[in-house]
């Protein structure tokens, strides 16, 4: 095993661990191929197990012979390890650096991890497209499941099975794929049961500068319209950005060719801008100057909250078109793998009560993010502390989770899950023992044989002890559409607050009281 070569000092005694808000721990530090472990070797103290893949960057400091390593994690935690001995410290640091930047996917921990729990339900099979389609079939017969992408040849980032309008044959789909960025022809994202309206997503149309046209594309999306009705195309880019894309072969649906559609442009930022925003936000949060003006101006300069507001607004707009206007919607940006997915998935949270359950949310992440081809591995390779030059990293998924949290805060009784569920997904998207978020698309996951070689996060989450931990005690099924407020005064900064814990503990106590009482009633009646 080549890991051993990278580990010069596997064990150091007398290491002191500092964590914010927690007492320090002294113990033995061990390095394994995938973990950094600190154990005090006493019975009741918890051990630190940190995945190397979770480490974003490290810093070394020396005071005399005492070295310190500051470990900054992708999940935004910062810990400090005081290591006696200069050489040990340097060895540990270089090992961590090497182990945390291994490039090969097949060396990742999920391929080595064996579950310590009984897998009752294999999460890899929990959310298959054919099952989702069965639900759709029970509501409408206007759609079919196409196998055109069976071998990922039509669109490398799509799953093998996609839902398309019934009247559109595979040949047409192949043609449309050549007209859309990345071969991402319009597919069904969501069917609104209440009025039969649909939301579709795609890549940008490849009109180029000379205004190329694709009749099949027009036919495909028109097939989703009711007679005499019009639809909306929500382009997540500003009109300027979209126009500029023409020079690179991209473009927009022109009014002349799509007379039944009205195009709306929104301005959701993408890629590097978002990564910088996250870096600035985290920097602002870690500023120790205790200066209010500085904090507010840094928060503003980070633009993070602006992104949250913009994404939420666009999602609300899409939901509004479907539910209030009774119109079908097509959402796309450039590639259709980032901002598009933020919008389509959030709109479903707003519209569809089943997405607000623990399992329904998994289904949503599975459908709209994993199978829809959000490149998790590229986007989550680095986080806010990394020193290396960002490549394709962007906190697209984190922003989505932040938006969900905003809605959760405004409708605290309408979600089956609590905030911890969102935090859990954030952590596992960046570093995990499970294979769920590995790879960039369904095709890559199939090539890596993830379902055979790794364990699914859902297998672990969907056990009753985990579900219990993630359940929101205030949940009461709410079958309505929930419209969040997007006013800046209504949006908060997502911080991990102890307040929430207190609330949940209090509610649980009250529920236990109620439960005890109802039990007593039962006894009394029997008596």
């Amino acid at each position, binding site marked *: 095993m080549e890991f051993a070569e990278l580990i010069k000092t596997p064990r150091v005694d007398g290491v002191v661990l500092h964590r914010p808000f927690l007492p320090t721990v002294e113990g033995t530090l061990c390095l394994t191929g995938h973990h950094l472990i600190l154990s005090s070797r006493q019975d009741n103290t918890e051990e630190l197990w940190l995945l190397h893949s979770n480490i974003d960057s490290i810093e070394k400091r020396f005071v005399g012979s005492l070295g310190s390593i500051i470990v900054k994690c992708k999940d935004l935690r910062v810990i400090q390890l005081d290591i006696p001995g200069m050489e040990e410290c340097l060895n540990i640091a270089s090992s961590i650096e090497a182990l945390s930047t291994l490039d090969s996917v097949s060396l990742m921990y999920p391929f080595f991890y064996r579950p310590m729990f009984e897998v009752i339900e294999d999460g890899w099979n929990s959310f298959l497209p054919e099952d989702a389609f069965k639900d759709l079939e029970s509501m409408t017969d206007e759609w079919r499941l196409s196998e055109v992408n069976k071998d990922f040849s039509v669109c490398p980032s799509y799953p093998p099975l996609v839902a398309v309008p019934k009247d559109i044959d595979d040949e047409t789909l192949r043609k449309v794929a050549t007209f859309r960025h990345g071969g991402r022809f319009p597919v069904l994202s969501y069917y609104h049961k209440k009025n039969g309206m649909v939301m579709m997503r795609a890549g940008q149309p490849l009109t180029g500068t000379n205004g190329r046209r694709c009749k099949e594309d027009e036919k495909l999306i028109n097939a989703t319209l009711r007679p005499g009705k019009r639809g909306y195309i929500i382009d997540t880019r500003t009109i300027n950005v979209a126009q500029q894309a023409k020079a690179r072969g991209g473009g927009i649906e022109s009014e002349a060719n799509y007379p039944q559609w009205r195009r709306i442009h*929104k301005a959701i930022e993408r890629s590097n801008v978002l990564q910088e925003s996250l870096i600035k936000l985290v920097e602002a949060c870690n500023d120790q100057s205790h200066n*209010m*003006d500085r904090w507010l101006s840094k928060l*503003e300069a980070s633009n993070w909250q602006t992104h949250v507001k913009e994404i939420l607004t666009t999602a609300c707009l899409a939901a509004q078109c479907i539910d209030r206007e009774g*119109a079908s919607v097509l959402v796309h940006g450039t590639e259709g793998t980032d901002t598009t997915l933020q919008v389509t998935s959030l709109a479903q949270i707003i519209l569809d009560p089943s997405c607000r359950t623990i399992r329904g949310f998994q289904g949503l992440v599975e459908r709209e993010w994993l199978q829809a081809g959000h490149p998790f591995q590229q986007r989550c390779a680095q986080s806010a502390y990394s020193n290396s030059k960002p490549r394709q990293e962007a906190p697209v998924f984190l922003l989505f989770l932040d938006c969900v949290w905003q809605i959760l805060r405004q409708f605290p*009784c309408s979600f089956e899950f609590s905030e911890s569920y969102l935090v859990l997904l954030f952590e596992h998207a960046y570093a995990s023992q499970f294979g769920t978020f590995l790879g960039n698309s369904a095709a890559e996951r199939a090539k890596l044989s993830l379902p055979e070689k790794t364990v699914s996060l859902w297998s672990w989450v969907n056990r009753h002890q985990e579900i219990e931990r993630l359940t929101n005690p205030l949940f009461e099924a709410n079958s309505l559409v929930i419209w969040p407020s997007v*006013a800046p005064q209504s949006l908060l900064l997502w911080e991990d607050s102890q307040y929430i814990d207190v609330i949940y503990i209090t509610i649980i106590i009250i529920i236990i*009281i109620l439960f*005890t*009482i109802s039990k007593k009633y039962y006894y009394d009646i029997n008596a």
Partner: protein
Amino acid sequence: MEHIRTPKVEQVRLLDRFSNKSTNGTLYLTATHLIFVESSSNNLTSAAQEIWILHHHIASVEKLSLTTTGCPLVIQCRNFRVVHFVVQRERDCHDIYSSLLRLLRPVSYEELYAFSYNPKQNDQQREEGWQLIDLGAEFERMGVPCDQWQLTDVNRDYKVCETYPRDLYVPITASKPIIVGSSKFRSKGRFPVLTYFYQEKKAAVCRCSQPLSGFSARCLEDESMLQAISKANHNSRFVYVMDTRPKLNALANRAAGKGYENEDNYSNIRFQFVGIENIHVMRTSLQKLLEVIGTRSLSMGDYLEGLESSGWLRHIKAIVDAAIFLAKAVTVEGASVLVHCSDGWDRTAQVCSLGALLMDPYYRTIKGFMVLIEKDWISFGHKFADRCDQLDGDPKEVSPIFTQFLECVWQLSEQFPQAFEFSEWFLLQIHEHVHSCQYGNFLGNNQRQREELQLRERTHSLWAYLLSEKQNYLNPFYSPAYCEAHPVLEPSTLPYHFKFWRNMYHQFDRSMHPRQSILKTILTLRENSHKAESTLQALENRLHQLGVTPLTTSDPPAHPPTRDQRTNSNSLPPRPDSLILGAPVNHKDVQGQDDEDEQDEVGEEAVESTDMERTVEGSSGTESRKQSYGELEGTYNNELAKEEPAVVSLEFGVARMTC
């Protein structure tokens, strides 16, 4: 009544502040209230909505220029409600406008609502209400008088200081000549007196106004006074003197013959500036803040920038920082502290009361908080009449000093959700009544004036009313055990712990609030659990009467650790709904109109409370949000699908009690 020219105007439109929505209704002008009643034809699914605005709450009325639809009238209230009416006929609008102008500027105290307000209590009940808070007993609770501190009668007839209360506590070694001498050397005669005594370390918190030191003047009696305060505490060799002003302001005061203590003259002091700005800066800051958050379709960038440039949160943090400094000096170092600003009734009141709140868990209870306000604000002469603009006075004297104090308390309660017996609702209710002039407590500028107005004989006490509704203000997360373990709060001063208090400044802007409220849900759960418990008790009693031993002896009733009162559990007063508590929690409202089968206990309770209340707030949140997401105008903007039923939510009980 003679000021009311038109008591009723029909066909008035109420515009929503943040959307294009409007409702039609009728405007009524009474001697005490401006009332808007929505015409019932507007909305068949819900009861007609009403808005009651107390004249004393109106800060300004503005008549905008005539439009094609009518004459706009914008009313800004001190509780941060902003209403925008459009009156069809200009003459009506002008009548209302000029009546309001007169009504909202009372010239004598007798015109204030408190003197006409009658909650159907007899004299004895009223008297009892006034006796609820006893400051003598409060000082006894702190352990004063004791071997180092005594009650002095020097101000019995308000001879030494007009703006102080009659009863004052000073060090035992401070003789009358020292007191009188010191008072002559202090602005407005406000010499150093005890306001809080930290028994554990025998450390005192004293307050006063700035010394009349000018550039070089000194006063031996004043120096002996500080010496006496220092000597009364054996834990520390010195007294901290906190000047809560920015140093520049204090320096400027020297030119006017005032200033600050010279450390060379006072042998035993440690002098410290803490830099809280003056009332004028605070007033402007709040104005800026309100301007920013009142902007329609505000962008996130402009919001954050406005929040920063208004400086409001910076000022709030400065006050909390000062209070933390005070609490640390007393509890950690065991030193006594003397706090002053210019006159010692604004910043000094903020810092002393907030510091005491950090040190003493009692002040974080409902009763204790009332005592704290009564002591540090009312009795020590915070000029409520001037600061809250009760009578037509100098606009430069108006300043949100007390609002800031309430906000600081709210910020702390966000950091320590378990440490406070009351919820933010209690703070908002107090804020409401500081401006309502409905109760006598906050009228006037000082105790002497209140005695002259015979407030105890002629008006009612707010505290009695609030205590009678105590159930409504309880914080369900409050844990006495937590307070025992953490008697002194040590808040973080990292800036991101200071948040914009939406429920204060947007209290009446329904579209801004969460549509479901954790607080309200838990309160409902709690009430149900109380009810269930009392039913259980009744059942058990009956079993006993029937001579049956319940099987449950092996399963004793779970007495929850958080439950503290089970006394009047079956006679809970109906809880008025509030906007800040967000959207309704009962199923009927959230789940749509066709859920008529929700008539279990929860449903009944909800019906009961809606019947009791009369004050109803304007718009349905979903509806006003409809337009705010983006540009759906043009050909597509036809009549939208049927709305969810307009949610009826009720606000604070101010107006309710007058019906």
